[in-house]
């Protein structure tokens, strides 16, 4: 991974950690969607991914998986594993 991609990956890790904190502290009912941060590689992105804590947990059980808004900045080589009308699930496993 070159230095640009490393920096982009660092951006994604920061968003991921921020979302973990958001999921921990949000006082919501089971299944209720909350506005997570888009985990794309653009550090200036403040996009909203509407998902439940359960959905977030399932996706993030795999440390290489992130959810991003469709069409947002990704790192070369990332694969889209799943798409729905709210977000794309991407994997960096091959990188």
């Amino acid at each position, binding site marked *: 991974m070159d230095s640009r991609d490393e920096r982009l990956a*660092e951006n994604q*890790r*920061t*968003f991921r*950690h*921020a*979302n973990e*904190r*958001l999921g921990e*502290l*949000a*006082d*919501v009912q089971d299944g209720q969607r*909350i*506005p*997570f*941060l888009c985990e794309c590689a653009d*550090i*200036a*992105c*403040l996009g909203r991914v509407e998902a439940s804590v359960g959905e977030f947990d399932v996706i993030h059980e795999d440390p290489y998986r992130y959810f991003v808004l469709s069409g947002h900045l990704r790192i070369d080589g990332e694969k889209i594993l799943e798409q729905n009308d709210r977000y794309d699930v991407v994997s960096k496993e091959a990188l």
Partner: protein
Amino acid sequence: MRPLALPVPQPRSSPGTRGAERSPFPAPTTEREHNDRLVGTLARNQVIFHEVNERLREIAGPAADLTLFVCECGDPCCSEGIELDTIEYAAVRSMPNVFMIVPGHERLEVDRVIDDSDRVMLVEKTVLVDDADLKAALGSRPWPAHGL
């Protein structure tokens, strides 16, 4: 002060040495470049956790009594929280360039302490965030001014 989980700069080769002149590798990052990057990272992280708190407040709703917010220090691994009521939170957010952190989490590279109490320390960011979207996000929420 707690160390951040960020890379430590490597010592720079002495200028003028034959090894440095002939090295096939890119020049190592200078300490100044490293510090600039660190400061930028700290500032951006603060903005991201500021946004997390905005969303926590949104989820809690206007009728919430006390809400547990995240510390807005620049450490991406910080897991401490700050409990504030709606009025207190609004007072913090009435100051667009001010962040709330757990006392002791200040980073003087990017922070100037403007208020301190047992529960929360308020700091003003002293460096510019050069991303237009983030700057807009920082200044876009019109909170009423209240005393904290």
